[in-house]
């Protein structure tokens, strides 16, 4: 089944104010940067964004925050972003912080038809407030619910016309689970190839989870912390 759309604006068709979006990536690694730029252009507002981080001030989801397009962030770590901090402390931005592993599993569960699950992460902390606690094997666990989204926007290294995706190195991170959990999943790839060119043994995300795929026009791939050693 051909999932290819011609460009980013066609890919993002149907995204409206007040929707919930999942956005793949960890830090600035593996983020759908072409789609984020297009969301800024579209100016859609009151978005709920589910993403591990909130970008930095002038890149990634930070760009949406600067335009005040985000009503609520669901994330695990939001440091390195002053505008985010300002909006959160002033109450302009709703923030739901959840443990990283719970965030990943909640997305996976959302895509896998599991409505909720028990995890030990967060027991005895603020995260557990209002959540059911049950003891398994002598250890307390809290009930976490699945997450889904109107649209999931993910970024892959290579994709084929069927929507099958391959990720590179640690740019995989949240992208596969979010691809599963979107009602409509948009994949932005660095290289789009004809069906049959990817080795079926090596595909990370099967095309069944992807509704639209396009090749991004340009990827800046900004590095957040450049650390090197000398030769």
């Amino acid at each position: 089944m051909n999932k290819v759309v011609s460009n980013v604006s066609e890919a993002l068709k149907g995204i409206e104010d007040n929707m919930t979006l999942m956005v793949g990536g960890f830090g600035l690694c593996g983020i759908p940067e072409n789609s984020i730029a297009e969301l800024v252009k579209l100016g859609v507002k009151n978005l709920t964004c589910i993403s591990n981080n909130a970008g930095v001030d002038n890149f990634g989801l930070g760009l949406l925050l600067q335009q005040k397009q985000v009503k609520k962030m669901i994330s695990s770590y939001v440091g390195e972003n002053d505008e985010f901090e300002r909006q959160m402390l002033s109450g302009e931005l709703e923030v739901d912080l959840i443990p990283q592993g719970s965030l990943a599993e909640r997305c996976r569960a959302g895509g896998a038809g599991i409505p909720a699950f028990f995890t030990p992460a967060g027991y005895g902390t603020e995260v557990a407030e209002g959540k059911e606690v049950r003891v398994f094997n002598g250890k307390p666990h809290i009930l976490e619910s699945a997450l889904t989204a109107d649209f999931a926007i993910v970024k892959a290294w290579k994709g084929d016309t069927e929507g099958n995706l391959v990720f590179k190195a640690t740019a995989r991170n949240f992208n596969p689970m979010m691809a599963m959990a979107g009602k409509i999943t948009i994949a932005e790839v660095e290289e789009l190839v004809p069906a049959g060119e990817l080795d079926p043994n090596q595909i990370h995300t099967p095309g069944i989870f992807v509704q639209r795929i396009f090749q991004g026009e340009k990827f800046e791939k900004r590095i957040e912390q450049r650390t090197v050693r000398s030769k």
Partner: protein
Amino acid sequence: MALDKVGIAKRIAQELKDGWYVNLGIGIPTLVANYIPEGIEVEFQSENGILGMGPFPFEGEEDADLINAGKQTITATKGAVFFDSAMSFAMIRGQHVQLTVLGAMEVSQNGDIANWKIPGKMVKGMGGAMDLVASADNIIVAMMHSNKAGESKILKECTLPLTGVGCVKKVVTELAVMEIKDGKFHLIERAPGVSVEEIISKTEGDLVVPDNVPEMVL
């Protein structure tokens, strides 16, 4: 003399055992990778999705797609593997990782840890810390004994929002190595030249002190 950050990392590195998979947190814990004892093999997991984390890349060889959980550019060792975040935390929650080393703002004598939030001042989020401390069998905390105002961070009870309860087994500070058991800190070793009295005076929590407290050998 009290240890510096490298000293703390060196002491924690002595806890590594051959064949272990280890998750190192941001800050002092990251330094532990530089002091793996000779003759043992360990593999480092970073929760953003790599097992087999290598040293920083040479200048000019940085890859934006290859970072650690601190968002630093890294390399992959021979035999390394990449995976998604759900798989990564399956390794952690499923207790396939043998040791977690992380930093803390406070620890308490029953093993509680606080390291993600200072109400009204700093909210960066917990990242993977809550999953790590809730699941790891073996957690070592690398931290300073007191804060900048000189107040002890080794407490009867944590005052900051918790990251996990009853989970910390061992604490290594610039002054001492302490074990946590039976609701108390137990002094195991002291930093070279640091007196037991100094450690007692800087520890707010209950501290069990044996007759003989050996100096660390670094």
